[in-house]
């Protein structure tokens, strides 16, 4: 190891550094006990020099791991893993990539933690008081608590607030910041503080089981056959451990795929990587990870058994993955030879490494350190997150929500219906009109009356309640000027909407279908078709819609009517008006069709929410939209200019009360949320 990376900022540091040069974060964990004592002190010698002796300040788990690897690995190729030791090594071992030896190891260790209740488990240790390693953990915890003066939870909140955490004032209901942006974790010990000591001991184990689907759980859990010694040389590998194929989740064929794990149907991955989506893969880590805290929780309660609870066993999805936990008689169980449990019988072991086919480590070696760090940090994150997941699972029924819905609906309906039914309250029409309204009015007023205007009804019928009201005054102005009108649409029901509007307004201004107004109809093909239409209008739409019967009988198409006779291109229209609620539609017309319009102005009649997307086209130095009419207030102003009271004015009062009610409800919601937050804070 030539350098170590800072867990906070990920920058390289000299190997001997204790604090990061760049951000000052602590690089090595605090170890109050100084050098570790006892059993796990000679890994280097046992390796025959293949691996450098573990420095005394390294983690105690690191030593255990070194030892176990030394024992289990016939040809330990530690140099092939340049990243080893850059992180707290217990996390190193929980590598998510599904590298089988490590997975096995991890499974073994976790089972050891979980399985105190089993015959030959950790009962002996329990009876004789806390084991040495547990005491060390506590000591370290206390040391840390004194150091920081914070509760155990705070190391996590520290992490959350660390790199890249956005300044969120409160993080209660958001999912916690994902682990990838967390700094690498501190030593294992503080985690135990996450769980209050009086918590039932079974909980973490059960939680970990619950937290993932059983097929995933299975994959993590099956690597823990009891009765196998950690040291591979002491027992032949032919015992109980299931043979594990060279990828992480061995039995889940469906996940890995028919053609083997490496063959991704939709693309390749680096060699040696399991082609299981990482998000599923990472999840498989949770079980072991969550089980860890149970180990250090305290001595007076029983550890959860390694077997699955029956209710969980009965659960889906498949029974074929049921773990085969074979418990050997005590005599058959080998004696632990190393580590803190040395001398005990039947200690649950790490997977005998020799039994595990190893994948070539080249691929994973080439993975940058970061990949691991993030995965490991994520592991930690998930351990914590599990607490919340249980809460989520029980959160399904939300009767309160229905009450909120009814209350809001009631208030809103009442507020809207009040002026509709009683005629009061009344609001004065807006005295101010939008800046762009005057120029739009002038634009329509100065259009050449001999060329037709094209009205594009590009909205769904659902919006007709709004857009009919907004667009009405403008269409009336066009009709007042006597400009012939052609309509079209790119939506199947648009023609019917056009028909409705024209049928309502046309007779007021003596517009005769076929003479002054004609419907081109539906243009299929969406945005693409708009381009085609812009390029060659006559070829894009062949027929008309709702032509007068005599014209249909005479075989006259819409293009042959007096309205459109002179039109061969978009620029032949005097005006193109797009009435739409969709920002995309508006953009298509502004960006694609405008190029073919020449001097013909393009006007947008918009639903209120679409304005910010279209306005840049209007305000650009070379405007692609020449007029905008949006929202009910602007429509009322337009009607006033026209000297009439139209749909917009009729809806103004009810719109006013509905808006006020909504504002009130939103403000109440903000206040309610903040009060909740404040109260939660106070409670904490």
């Amino acid at each position: 190891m030539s350098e170590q990376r800072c867990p906070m900022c990920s920058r390289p540091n000299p190997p001997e550094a204790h604090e990061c040069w760049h951000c000052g974060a602590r690089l090595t964990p605090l170890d109050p006990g100084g050098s570790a004592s006892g059993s796990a002190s000679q890994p280097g010698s046992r390796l025959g020099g293949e691996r450098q002796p573990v420095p005394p300040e390294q983690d105690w788990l690191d030593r255990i791991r070194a030892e176990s690897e030394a024992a289990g690995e016939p040809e330990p190729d530690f140099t092939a893993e340049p990243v080893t030791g850059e992180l707290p090594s217990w996390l190193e071992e929980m590598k998510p990539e599904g590298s089988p030896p490590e997975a096995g190891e991890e499974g073994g260790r976790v089972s050891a933690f979980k399985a105190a209740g089993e015959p030959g488990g950790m009962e002996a240790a329990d009876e004789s008081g806390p084991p040495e390693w547990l005491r060390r953990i506590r000591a370290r915890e206390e040391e840390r608590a004194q150091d920081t003066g914070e509760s155990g939870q705070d190391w996590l909140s520290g992490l959350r607030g660390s790199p890249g955490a956005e300044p969120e004032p409160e993080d209660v209901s958001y999912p916690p910041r994902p682990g990838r942006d967390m700094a690498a974790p501190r030593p294992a010990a503080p985690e135990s503080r996450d769980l209050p000591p009086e918590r039932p001991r079974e909980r973490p184990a059960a939680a970990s089981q619950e937290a993932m689907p059983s097929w995933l759980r299975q994959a993590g859990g099956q690597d823990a056959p009891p009765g196998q010694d950690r040291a591979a040389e002491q027992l032949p590998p032919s015992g109980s451990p299931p043979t594990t194929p060279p990828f992480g989740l061995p039995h889940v064929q469906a996940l890995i795929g028919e053609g083997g794990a490496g063959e991704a149907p939709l693309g390749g991955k680096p060699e040696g990587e399991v082609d299981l989506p990482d998000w599923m893969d990472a999840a498989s880590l949770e079980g072991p990870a969550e089980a860890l805290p149970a180990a250090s929780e305290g001595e007076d309660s029983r550890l959860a058994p390694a077997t699955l609870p029956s209710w969980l066993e009965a659960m889906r999805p498949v029974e074929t993955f049921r773990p085969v936990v074979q418990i050997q008689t005590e005599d058959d169980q080998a004696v632990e030879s190393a580590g803190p449990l040395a001398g005990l019988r039947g200690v649950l072991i790490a997977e005998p490494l020799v039994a595990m086919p190893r994948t070539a480590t080249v691929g994973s070696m080439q993975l940058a350190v970061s990949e691991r760090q993030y995965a490991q940090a994520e592991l930690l994150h998930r351990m914590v997150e599990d607490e919340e997941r249980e809460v989520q699972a029980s959160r399904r029924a939300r009767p309160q929500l229905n009450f909120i819905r009814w209350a809001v609906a009631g208030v809103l309906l009442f507020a809207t219906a009040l002026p509709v039914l009683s005629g009061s309250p009344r609001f004065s029409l807006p005295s101010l009109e939008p800046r762009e309204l005057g120029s739009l009015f002038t634009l329509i007023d100065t259009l050449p009356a001999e060329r037709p205007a094209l009205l594009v009804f590009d909205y769904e019928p659902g919006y007709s309640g709004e857009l009919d009201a907004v667009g009405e005054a403008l269409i009336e102005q066009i009709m007042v000027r006597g400009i012939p009108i052609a309509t079209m649409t790119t939506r199947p029901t648009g023609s019917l909407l056009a028909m409705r509007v024209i049928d309502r307004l046309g007779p007021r201004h003596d517009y005769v279908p076929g003479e002054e107004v004609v419907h081109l109809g539906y243009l299929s093909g969406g945005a693409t078709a708009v381009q085609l239409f812009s390029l060659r209008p006559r070829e894009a739409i062949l027929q008309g819609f709702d032509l007068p019967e005599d014209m249909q009988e005479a075989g006259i198409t819409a293009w042959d009517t007096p309205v459109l006779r002179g039109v061969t291109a978009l620029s032949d229209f005097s005006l193109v008006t797009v009435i739409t609620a969709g920002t995309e539609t508006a953009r298509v017309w502004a960006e694609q069709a405008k190029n073919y319009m020449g001097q013909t102005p393009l006007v947008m009649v918009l639903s209120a929410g679409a304005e910010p997307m279209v306005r840049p086209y209007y305000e650009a130095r070379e405007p692609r939209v020449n007029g905008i009419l949006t929202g009910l207030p602007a429509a009322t102003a337009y009607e006033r200019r026209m000297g009439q009271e139209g749909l917009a004015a009729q809806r103004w009062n009810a719109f006013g009360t509905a808006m006020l009610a909504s504002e009130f409800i939103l403000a109440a919601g903000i206040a309610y949320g903040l009060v909740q937050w404040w109260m939660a804070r106070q409670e904490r």
Partner: protein
Amino acid sequence: MRVRLSALWAAVALAAGLFVLLGYFVQLKAVQDLRLTFLHWAVLLAGAALIVGLVNLVSVHWRKVGLLEEGWIYSAVLILALVITLGLGLFFGPDNAVALFIFSNFQLPVETSLMALLAVSLVVAGFRLVSRRRDLYTLIFLATALFVMVGTAPWPLPGLGTFEVVVRDLRAWISQVWAAGGARGILLGVALGATATGLRVLLGTERPYGG
């Protein structure tokens, strides 16, 4: 054999896509003609796909009716409405009076009523938002929304002329300048994502058509 076929389909997609794509930038007549042809075919195929879709839709509901599954009566109503509208539309054209009647008195009321439901849903969502997602951005979101609404809605208290003017100007400033900046950034980002997605499909690394 399947491998070859799937490569063939990918090649078809790529070839058709290439001409259509080039047509956006190259104004050569041959390219433009090919582009128009492919687009025309695609529109035809989309129309034919709708027929396939409708047949599937009917068959799904037909099966429900046949098996008297829960809610079969609704399925029967759906099929009936579909057949009537389709039949009328096919024989008398989409602009016949009955089609307009059905549209005006069934489709339009349902759609506008759904929009009315949307209004309630949006207000409920706004009410719950702070309790549900308590961060600075949610507060900014809601504060902006509230301010814009105040600036849009009728002014309840008369006689605050200057204040009203300030509020409405500020509203216009926020929605026309601040929002325009954010919207443009989002648009550019979406365009980047869409381009990448389209290119993946074109290159055949993603083949939603199977094969």
